């Protein structure tokens, strides 16, 4: 049973923004709405700069779904979190709840004129007839029903962004980790089990490295 996920390999992401424009292109997302963005942390800091692409993570226990007052969210059998724009009241509560900033609002203004929430759909469209014009106008393309995967993941310049079934992603990523001899430094061993410092190594591999160089 496929469980759709995204994984952005920060060791590969070069902030080329290919994923961002691929999404804009595929769904004709208007200016001001950013379904996917690339964030770079520690810009310019030698040895610490990392880039990572962020969109909706299609959480198993989605906070957006939990807090929506009109319950316009649902999760498909593949784990994709979608919502019904016709029901959405634009309250923005999902925006507060989401830890990734995925919900986007097409309106901008000081007094709460938000419009319907829009977000990454994992290229799975929404609750309209698949591949219909109505679905495209409201939610964008439905690539999954065409047998394709999200445009952002398919077009990533360095294959950093992986999108699709979680098992396959795990296989792909595992092979990369094996070849590299280590995992991603952003969320790797050091962040999960160590002092929370990016790049921290398990104790037996601690070694002093001169600044500006990495093994």
């Amino acid at each position, binding site marked *: 049973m496929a469980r759709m996920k995204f994984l952005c390999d920060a060791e590969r992401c070069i902030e080329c923004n290919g994923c961002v424009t691929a999404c804009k292109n595929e769904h004709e997302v208007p*200016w001001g709405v950013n379904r996917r963005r690339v964030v770079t942390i520690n810009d310019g800091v030698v040895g610490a700069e990392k880039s990572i692409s962020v969109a909706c993570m299609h959480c198993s226990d989605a906070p957006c779904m939990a807090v929506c007052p009109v319950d316009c969210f649902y999760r498909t059998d593949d784990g994709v979190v979608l919502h019904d724009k016709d029901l959405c009241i634009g309250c923005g509560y999902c925006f507060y709840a989401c830890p990734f900033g995925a919900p986007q609002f*097409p309106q901008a203004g000081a007094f709460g004129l938000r419009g319907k929430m829009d977000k990454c759909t994992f290229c799975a469209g929404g609750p309209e007839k698949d591949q219909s014009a109505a679905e*495209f106008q409201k939610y964008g*393309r439905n690539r999954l029903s065409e047998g394709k995967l999200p445009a952002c993941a398919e*077009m990533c310049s360095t294959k950093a962004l992986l999108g699709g079934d979680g098992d396959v992603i795990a296989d792909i990523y595992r092979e990369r980790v094996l070849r590299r001899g280590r995992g991603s430094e952003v969320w790797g061993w050091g*962040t999960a089990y160590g002092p929370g410092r990016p790049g921290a190594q398990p104790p037996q591999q601690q070694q002093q490295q001169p600044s500006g160089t990495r093994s």
Partner: protein
Amino acid sequence: MLLTRKATGQAAPQQRLSRTIPIAKTIDRRTFLKRSGVTVGAGAVASQLPFNMIGEAEAKNEETGKFEVRRTVCTHCSVGCAVDAVVQNGVWVRQEPVFDSPLSLGAHCAKGASVREHGITHDSHRLKYPMKLEGGKWKRMSWDQAYDEISKKMLEIRKQSGPDSLFLVGSSKHNNEQAELLCKWVRLWGSNNTDHQARICHSTTVAGLGQTWGYGAMTGSYNDEQNSKSLMFLGSNAAEAHPVSMLHTLHARENGCKVIVVDPRFTRTAAKADMYVRHRSGSDVAFLFGVLHHIFKNGWEDKKYLHDRVYGMDEVKKEVMAKWTPANVAEATGVPEEQVFAVAKTLAENRPGFIIWAMGQTQHTNANGIVRASNILMLALGNVGRSGGGCNVYRGHDNVQGATDVGPNPDTLPGYYPVAVPGSWTHWAKVWNVDIEWLKKQYASEAMMAKPGMTVSRWIDGVLEKNEAIDQDSNLRMMIFWGHAPNSQSRGSEMLEAMKKLDLMVVIDPYPSASAAMFAKVRKDGAYLLPAATQFETEGSVTASNRSIQWRERVIEPLFESRTDHMIMYQLAQKLGFADQFIGKKDGKQLLRLVKGKGGMDEPSMEDTLRNEINGGCWTIGYTGQSPERIQAHMRNMHVFDVKTTRARGGKDAKTGYDLTGDYYGLPWPCYGNAKIKHPGTPILYDTHKHPMDGGHAFRALFGVEKDGVNLLAEDGVANKGSDITTGYPQFDHVLLKKLGWWDELSDEEKAAAEGKTWANDLSGGIQRVAMKHGCTPFGNAKARAVVWNWPDAIPQHREPLFSPNPALVEKYPTHDDVKVLWRLPTLFKSLQQQAVKEEVHKKFPLILTSGRLVEYEGGGEETRSNPWLAELQQDGFCEINPKTAADRGIRNGEYVWVSTPGKNPVDGSNVRLKVKAKVTEGVGPDTIFIPFHFSGWWQGEDMLPYYPEGAAPIVRGEAVNTATTYGYDRITLMQETKTTLCQVAKA
């Protein structure tokens, strides 16, 4: 619900997330600017749409309309990522990745993933119809009217001042056929005053590499990096300029390859490096020779390779050991000895390896030396001529390689046949089916015909310089910008003066470009804009940086009233009187068929151009084997090509039955001989491990047979695999063939054509065929030169940039002497540098100003800044400034600043200054300021929107850094020094 369902570790991830984000600086280039400009977006602003709509559907009719898939290639850089364009009812509706492509594997960067925008007509910022500047306003006109007025004016000026009063700036974004036709077009007009983006991009590379070992192009490929053990990026920010190439680089790195980045900035590429070295902009020769010093000192050079295949390394070694001691290197570059040594050791221990560069090496006054120093380093390590090693030159625009090879260059005809050699003209007159005597008469004189023209980097001097000082009769009076922006050339403030003086300016481009705005700012009339079609609206071939040739299918009809470039060429030629010669119509024969283009109008056939002109004439660089049929078969069968070697494992094209076995993808040039002999292309240059018919190659015997008693040909035992001659040999011609007794292997037809000819002008290809049959490379088998004795700097020298921050170093490493005539113009070097020292310019402008690229934009930027999906990502012109530099001047992140340079505004003599936002980052050192060069549309703080034609201004406008860059040109090619000048920054 998330918070209540707490297992022991559940809350912790939540905590970590909030803990790390404040620590890490989340301000990155894109977000910090984006917050300010949400409402800048014109047109499809979301607030205009009803609540539940997100976008307009293009082809609203979902039931009818067949879908067609057209395979094309992205037009934004030289990696050449294939794109599958889905078209319905003539509308470009979808874009899909091409996973099978051996070059890109389906990957795209921001620009490639958004090329479909070129097919969108609503709210397009394209130039939609011909326009004329009248009374200070851009007025619409018809094509016929435009042609009439333009041709009338051109002929009038020609009558008064001769054909050399025209400067035709061609384009690296034309496909090969259009580029070659444009080269012909300007020659039929009668002038060598033509050029294109390669001048300001890799002209120094082509010259430097060509003079070292024969061909001036990437020696390997992006794919070949997967076979490398080390990769040194010196002067390349590939993560932003060639993002998809990083797929190969990072894959290599994950398989053990060492990546070193040497750059004054800590770029996105440097963030992925194993080793990062910060050096001073322009000090590359010192750095490279510093590395070489350690290599020689420790005996790490490949002595056998040097003995067998390189001339002059001993001289270089002597100089490097004496002059480039660690102390000198540290003084010139700012890099401590341990780092230089670490680099040398890594490169020596990890062979084969590539050195990779782009503008960081090429855009300097001594770039010819920098590029050659890179060559020398690779030769010393024995890296050239093997898989995984050599000089990987990352070209810029999508077809700058092709345009350089066959397009409008001032000093060469297609295929690098020099204009100075009469034989080149007879060769091409024959290929073009043009009467050579008629051609000679088109020129002002035979002397002018043989004289290389001016360069695009100096066209303003061609207009403004004193007439006695230029090496042609009249100054330049008319400019045609045919697919080239003006804000990529330096000294923009003086360009405005030049525009004031021009009699005529014609811009032929899909976008008005900054030329229109700049011209309208200072003039009331005298300019025309003609809408050209993009490369998605025509078919044709394009050469990627790795010399592979790909074929683009036409996706859509030219939009609005635009016409393809070759249609415009033909129609203008009709008005100017050389239409017949343009299509090679003579003596009952017509070289190029006319096919029906947009609106049923005639245009020359692209396939005929490739087959009859490019394949028919470019014997020197092996553009002869890539027939349209072969490369189209490659495009249809990408899946059979192996990624590491780019070779086809087998396969037969379903459509034509063509057998792909053995071909290298795109038949990378040189692909010698005609298509019949099925040469597979040459993926790696100078590689003697393979038989020539298998893709093998050697150093060209271009420089003679011996020099000062030393053999210049390859030593005994050094020849291609399977070669019948197992030592060095000179270029093949009919004499050599006869001497070897191979003459009778030619067919009678071939003998007739080859009699009296060399391998380079034998139109039958017989000499090449027979030479390769015997395992020999037709251009000879020689040594590479570490010493280029015919250049001012035989051994590369470090010379300080004209505007240097350190007068003591200027004293120690001065620049060249002034040259009275270089490419028809007087060129200053030392006098300017001395004047700058005398006036203490470095005190008034203490910071180094360097420029470079951003991933979202390309070139002059008007095209990409008109694409809302890209424009949204970079909405403001900005500069990168170090925290200390900013703090010293009271500048905060995101504030506007004035960056001023020694460049002057001719009107009042004030210093040029640019208004940009400050991005405070540690990525640049405290002595450097970086400004991306893609912006235009602001002039020293003033928005030039009123000067653009209505509806055709780019969405994002900003300061063009080249408005402020200063005088400085390469000694050999007149490449501009846009990587190193001086500036001062102050709060706005």
